[in-house]
């Protein structure tokens, strides 16, 4: 029995719509029964929570909508459960008590669309800056994309600090990660007791931009800039979502090229991370050598696409640039060399006792917590759960390659390191297979038709975990809704579990072990030392300073 029929049978009267498009089961229920439906589904089926999406549907149906997206673990299917609410009194039941992983997504919807979630344990601001007015929700359609917050409010960091422990701020700038983030560690001697996280200093409003300013084919280039390391997976994911929504057939050769570059990206991303991990453990020699090996991959990417990073290759319907015979030959040679060098390096790295001692048994993430809190990617697989989008929901040319998915059960930092090492080696094998049988033909689909009001959902396995793009197509060559969920968003909440009772010296490597990726811009915060008031400088003030 399909999920749709099952739901219709049990919640019959409350189901407003239940349709299946490709591999997406779309169910719209009455908002009173939303929580029950999801409770039932998560109990009956082995569902993996992906994300929640808020949509301002007032121009069409005069409602605000919430979609909760799940994927099925056993087959390549997605389940989208939607409900709508009155824009004058936007209240929906929170599903966080049933699905803890939905915590952040619901807070984000509350910030950006103003939908309140009843029964949410901690419905505080997540994404919006502290000086943003309470009643303006940026993703609503009547808010222009270039609106700036004009009021200057005095704000303090509203974190609940335990009084009896030393507070150790990590961030907004800290040598641990050269990106803006804010962890507050509560330390008792050399032991971390608790941790609070505050991020989104750098929310750039890319979704709003994609919904108002950019055309379909411009979005991939902005999407690629979501991440400075794994950008290609974002543009691929976006293109796939639109291709799915509009039922565009992508030429096989383009899919191969996408897969090859996705794997190259995974390799250089993992090598980058291994280097950073070495640095955090004080083993700078490992850091340098890891990055030396990575450099071969970067140069190969430049040879294949014209760019070391941010390839600018994806368009809806395919890719812009072909790989020629010389490129294939070069790639095979480079991969062979990298494999040799990497194996030698890994052997050296794992033979260092003090490095291994600091990774083993620290930052443990139990299997249950990993699944419940929605960890993704290597973080999830290091805790013993075999879930990889490339295998569970194959996309691009991954069906054509055979590869294994490394899984470790320890859930500690060492397991997360070993997963990434294994995956890097596995990537080499995938690329070699794909290069071997890359078919001839076009690289870009012709005659693309644009349809309005279609839903597209696509997932890719980024180096850091699963990456999801959700689109609703609109008119005038512009998206109606574009939702992005990057993997770090799902992985950050599990840090709280990993950091508890962890020695302070292992906190940095534990934080880094999820390979967090924040983007690199920040607002200015002025702190008055005398009275301890922090003030976020508004855009108006920055303009006055002629920045």
């Amino acid at each position, binding site marked *: 029995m399909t999920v749709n029929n099952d739901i219709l049978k049990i919640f019959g009267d409350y189901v407003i719509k239940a349709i299946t498009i490709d591999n997406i089961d779309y169910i719209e229920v009455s908002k009173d029964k939303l929580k029950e439906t999801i409770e039932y589904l998560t109990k009956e089926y082995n569902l993996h929570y992906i994300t929640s999406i808020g949509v301002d549907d007032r121009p069409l149906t005069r409602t605000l909508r919430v979609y909760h997206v799940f994927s099925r673990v056993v087959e390549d299917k997605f389940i989208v459960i939607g409900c709508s609410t009155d824009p004058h009194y936007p209240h929906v039941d929170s599903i966080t008590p049933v699905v803890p992983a939905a915590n952040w997504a619901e807070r984000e919807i509350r910030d950006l669309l103003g939908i309140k979630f009843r029964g949410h344990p901690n419905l505080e601001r997540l994404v919006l800056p502290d000086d943003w007015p309470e009643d303006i929700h940026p993703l609503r359609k009547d808010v222009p994309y270039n609106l700036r917050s004009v009021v200057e409010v005095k704000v303090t960091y509203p974190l609940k600090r335990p009084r009896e422990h030393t507070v150790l701020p990590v961030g907004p700038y*800290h040598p641990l990660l050269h990106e803006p983030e804010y962890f507050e560690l509560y330390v008792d001697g050399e032991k971390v007791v608790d941790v609070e996280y505050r991020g989104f200093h750098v929310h750039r409003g890319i979704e709003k931009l994609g919904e108002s300013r950019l055309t379909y084919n411009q979005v991939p280039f902005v999407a690629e800039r979501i991440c400075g390391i794994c950008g290609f997976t974002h543009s691929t994911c976006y293109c796939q979502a639109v291709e799915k929504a509009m039922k565009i057939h992508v030429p096989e050769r383009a899919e191969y090229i996408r897969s090859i570059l996705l794997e190259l990206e995974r390799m250089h991303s993992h090598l980058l991370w291994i280097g950073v991990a070495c640095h955090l453990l004080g*083993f*700078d020699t490992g850091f340098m050598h890891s990055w030396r090996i990575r450099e071969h991959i970067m140069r190969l990417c430049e040879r294949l696409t014209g760019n070391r990073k941010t390839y600018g290759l994806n368009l809806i319907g395919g890719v812009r640039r072909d790989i020629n015979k010389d490129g294939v030959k070069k790639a095979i040679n480079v991969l062979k060399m990298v494999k040799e060098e990497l194996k030698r390096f890994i052997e050296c790295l794992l033979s260092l006792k003090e490095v291994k*001692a600091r990774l083993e048994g620290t930052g443990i993430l139990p299997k249950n917590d990993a699944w419940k809190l929605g960890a993704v990617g290597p973080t999830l697989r290091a805790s013993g759960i075999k879930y990889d989008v490339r295998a569970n929901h194959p996309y691009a040319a991954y069906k054509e390659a055979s590869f294994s998915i490394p899984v470790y059960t320890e859930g500690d930092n060492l397991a997360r390191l070993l997963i990434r090492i294994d995956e890097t080696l596995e990537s080499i094998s995938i690329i070699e297979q794909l290069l071997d049988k890359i078919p001839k033909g076009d690289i870009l689909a012709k005659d693309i038709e644009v349809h309005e009001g279609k839903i597209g959902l696509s997932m890719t396995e980024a180096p850091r975990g699963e990456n999801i793009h959700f689109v609703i197509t609109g008119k005038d060559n512009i998206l109606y809704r574009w939702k992005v969920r990057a993997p770090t968003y799902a992985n950050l909440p599990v840090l709280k579990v990993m950091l508890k009772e962890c020695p302070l010296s292992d906190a940095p490597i534990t934080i880094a072990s999820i390979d967090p990726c924040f983007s690199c811009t920040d607002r200015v915060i002025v702190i008055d030392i005398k009275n301890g008031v922090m003030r976020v400088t508004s855009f108006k003030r920055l303009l006055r300073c002629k920045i």
Partner: protein
Amino acid sequence: MVELELTLLGVIVSLFYSLILDGLERKIRAKIQSRKGPPITQTLYDVIKLFRKELLIPSTAPSMFMFAPIVSFSMIIIAYLILPYGFPNPMGFYGDLILLVYLIVASTILLLYGGSSSGNPYAEIGCSREISLLMANELIIALVIATIAIRYHALSLNTVLASLTISPSSILIVLTLLLYIYIESARLPFDIGEAEPEIASGYLIEYSGPLLGLTIYTHILKRTLLYLFTSVVILGLVDNIIQLSDIISRFVTILLFVTLLSILYSIISNICGRFRVRHAVNAVRAIIPLPVLALILSFLGL
């Protein structure tokens, strides 16, 4: 009085040479990491650059914050003055061995105190880490001094240089010293007090500009001082074998020892990761049997 002038010359040469030595270590590190590396004079440039910068002091820091690096620096300079550079130092006196160790330890503690007085939590954690390492490490040097005093009835550096002979206890002393100065010079895996990625340079975090320059210079000088001290002991030990009589060649030999030690240590520290605090302290404690054995042997007159 030519020895006094030569000693002063030795001090000046060492003050400059220590910076070059650090540059050399950076070059070696670069080679191991397959990089090109900065020029050998880079540390000198760094220190000069820092001295030219604006002096910034946190408004909450006590005056100790500013004075600690200055006093710490002058203590190290005094230590340089009492050291024999391959020939008896006319400024040496009975008991200057104890003063030397006192100066080294006190300058470290002063720096820690100055850094942590800034009130920065990272500085406090770095300080507490460093102290726990210091506690274990100072026991080792105390045992070494006791051994020298008992075996050779010497508490002055000049007599150490003159009277050391090869014996089981003296070989153990040199071995212990080699380990002690490695730990004392805060190299990987023992640099837990600074640990840049963990606690953002630890007790150094609030220092900037000239004060940071002074702290870094003091740190480099301390390293070289430890090498010099060990080289003096080694030279005293092998004096009868190599039989150098010329003052200049003895001084050059000491500098050679210092350079070799520096190269050796920088290679070791580049193939290490950082210890956890507990592991570091345990590693230091594991060394303690060595000087204890030396002490027992010295009682037996071996």
